[in-house]
């Protein structure tokens, strides 16, 4: 138990003030391993993220960045969390029960998966799966959109259109395999943001998109996050993408934190050789 815990338990009093320093999420010495004795997948990773802030987590494949995303959702199985804490809304998610996590996922913490095709059940129409989501979070979606609960589905379809899905009401009658990866990716963005979660995790969200579209969408999300006070974690191997949207960047390598800093500072004068090499390799 540390200062971060105290800060979070004091959350209730502080929330009334306009403070931006109270983190939405505080990860403390998070350690994950595949099985006892094996190399650590994550080794004492710590960071905090404030409302409205966008944090980039940049690393190469095998750096542990997807594991980090799954830990925050507590979907890291079969890996186990060996130490450290994930403090969110006054509770340690590293020790939270599955029942607690079910009340948080989708509604308070949303994840946009890296493979949009794998994120939809191939046997049900997209509309069917959107309907399921809306049923699960009807009130939150309606409140976020400022409409009556009965109009939550329409609001969600409208969101899809604002993310670039044309004629959403008709298009969602299709099955996932009939949509392009890019379109599925946009639908995931729309769903994840619809209930206005406090924490939004984007895991390689733009692998299916062209660079201009990716930059624009991620920049839009970051802007939206700022306005609504959503804490956003952008996980990517693409430092160029992180650079366009993130306030701070955390560099991860083989499960350990190499460096963390303000975007401009990290790009301009990184302290470690690895981070400098990453910056150099991003823009040539």
């Amino acid at each position: 138990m540390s200062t971060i815990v105290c800060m979070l338990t004091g959350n209730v009093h502080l929330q009334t003030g306009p403070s931006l320093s109270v983190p939405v999420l505080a990860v403390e010495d998070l350690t994950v391993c595949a099985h006892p004795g094996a190399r650590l997948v994550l080794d004492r990773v710590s960071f905090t993220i404030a409302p409205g802030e966008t944090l980039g987590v940049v690393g190469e494949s095998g750096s542990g960045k997807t594991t980090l995303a799954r830990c925050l959702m507590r979907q890291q199985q079969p890996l186990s969390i060996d130490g450290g804490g994930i403090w969110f809304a006054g509770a340690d998610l590293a020790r939270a029960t599955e029942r607690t996590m079910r009340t948080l996922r989708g509604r308070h913490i949303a994840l946009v998966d890296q493979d949009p095709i794998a994120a939809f059940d191939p046997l049900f129409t997209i509309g069917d799966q959107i309907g399921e989501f809306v049923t699960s979070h009807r009130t939150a979606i309606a409140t976020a959109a400022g409409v009556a609960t009965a109009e939550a589905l329409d609001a969600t379809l409208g969101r899809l259109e604002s993310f670039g899905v044309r004629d959403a009401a008709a298009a969602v009658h299709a099955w996932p395999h009939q949509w392009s990866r890019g379109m599925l990716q946009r639908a995931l963005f729309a769903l994840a943001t619809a209930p206005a979660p406090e924490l939004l995790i984007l895991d390689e969200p733009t692998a299916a998109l062209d660079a201009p579209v990716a930059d624009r969408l991620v920049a839009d999300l970051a802007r939206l996050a700022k306005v609504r006070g959503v804490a956003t974690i952008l996980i990517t191997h693409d430092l160029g993408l992180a650079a366009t949207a993130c306030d701070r960047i955390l560099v991860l390598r083989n499960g350990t934190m190499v460096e963390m800093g303000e975007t401009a500072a990290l790009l301009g004068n990184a302290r470690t050789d690895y981070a400098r090499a990453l910056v150099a390799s991003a823009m040539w």
Partner: protein
Amino acid sequence: MISYALGRVLGALVVMLLVSLLTFLLLQMAPGDAVLAIARARYGDGVALSPESLARIMDEIGANRPFLVQWGHWASDLARLDLGVSLIDGRPVADILAEGFCRTLQLALAAVALAAVLSIPLGLLAGVWRGTWFDSVCVSLATLGSAMPNWWLGVLLIVVFSVNLGWFPAFGRGDASHLVLPALTLGTGITVTTARLLRSATVEALSARHIAAARGRGIRESRIIGRHALRNALVPVITIFALEIAFVLEGAVAVEYVFGWRGLGLIFIEAVDARDYPVIQAMVLFSAILFIVINLFVDFLTAWLDPRTRATIG
């Protein structure tokens, strides 16, 4: 989709025609002289047979006409559902088959219903609760069930429920109580196979990324299991389950024998034993058609369950 369905049905018809030719051919070439067999059956084993009576029998069954003519006659009769008469007792084959099929259908329907009701929840839940005591019990029972011969289970049930407890009749047909033990015996076999398959299919389905994604979106667990996991798991299981249905519809010889339930299985065995060619031909043709129809049905069902197969076949 409609053109696909039409194409499949037409294809199935062609296969059926070929099957009819093949069964006819195979049986023509089968060892054992049908004429002699009929004569022996009619006049007794040790009796000296006159050439006249043999010639009469030959004429009767048309054995002296050319092969294609024989097949043509047989096929055109077949089209009118005239399957000829049994060489043994002279009854129309269609009647014999219809009677046997009614009995087999009764038994099969009861067994399949039992299997569906038991295996779907058991297989699904064992898969969902993998590694728990429930799963262990299910897997052990299923292993036991598949290791145990069907007829042995039948005998066991007779000993317990009719000899010792006297709850159900052990033998023959009559009211619904006669159906209980044979249906239970046959149903257990199907349940065991289907539940095991469904369990592993469920485990596989639950490990899919879209299930984790649905959980991540905060979809209720009951919905994830009852809709997404179940439907994904059923796709591979349906094919096997349908084949099981086909097998029991052809007649389960062992179970019919143990319970004295004279269905298609026993009729077939008796016909083979007596070289009753019209009955054998009709039976072989029936089982071929049954398999073709059930396969067709499975394809349509799979296409309905999985839209991706619809796209590739359209």
